[in-house]
């Protein structure tokens, strides 16, 4: 009797593990809570992607020109900075980090199967800082790029 119970439990557990991933959305706030608490982009990226590609504003590895980021060079209003990310790469996850705020992670997009990457959104930045975009393609490679954005009036309640 006990053994039968044990087996059923095993099957249920295996099914529960298998089902998410393909259909179910990944909530990065739950799967990588540490990444959202990190103060610096470098730490947040390391937590999020498990690789060190960013150790300082000018020390970036795996830089790509295949991802296009449209962002203002000078942002007049730090409370709302428009950012657009575009790419033709086969991207699985694309994340946006900045060094201006108390925590670096801002937004992580999971690109659904077969969809194009073209996202526009707005972020808050408290001060002039580097922003970093890290994308993971389906083959597991990381692609990065960064840019400095000048903020004249800080957002984030500042």
């Amino acid at each position, binding site marked *: 009797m006990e053994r039968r119970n044990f087996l059923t439990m095993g099957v249920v557990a295996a099914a529960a593990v298998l089902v998410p991933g393909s259909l179910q959305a990944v909530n990065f706030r739950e799967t990588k809570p540490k990444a959202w608490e990190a103060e610096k982009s470098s730490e947040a990226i390391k937590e999020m992607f498990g690789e060190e590609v960013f150790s300082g504003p000018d020390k970036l590895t795996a830089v790509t020109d295949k991802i296009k980021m449209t962002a203002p060079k000078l942002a007049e209003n730090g409370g709302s900075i428009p950012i657009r990310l575009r790419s033709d790469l086969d991207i699985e996850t694309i994340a946006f980090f900045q060094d201006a705020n108390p925590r670096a992670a801002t937004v992580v997009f999971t690109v659904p199967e077969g969809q194009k990457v073209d996202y526009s959104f*707005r972020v808050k930045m408290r001060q002039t800082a580097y922003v970093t975009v890290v994308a993971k393609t389906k083959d597991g490679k990381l692609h990065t790029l960064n840019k400095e954005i000048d903020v004249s009036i800080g957002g984030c309640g500042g």
Partner: protein
Amino acid sequence: MAKKAMKIKAKEKDGVVKVKAMFKSLMADKEEAEKKNISVEYIAQIVGKANDKVVFEASTSGFMSEDPLMKFEFTGAKKGDSLEFELTMHDGKKVTGKKKIK
């Protein structure tokens, strides 16, 4: 929630659906809430679905701007289909919204 939680615009052309969506939220993280003396409020995750397929997904933090506006495109839906958004707030509350694709 008394006020409308989101505004969605979706238009299909040549198989590509262009979406503009605005989500009502103060997007206040810990520090900002303290400064402005309001409670912490932000959207933690946004999931967009059309025809039971996930077409958009983002995990967000309080550093998105207030009332985050998202623009994106996707394929695989046509006119008349409905686009559904599910927001997960910072405290785990879920808010959903629906709109027909024009």
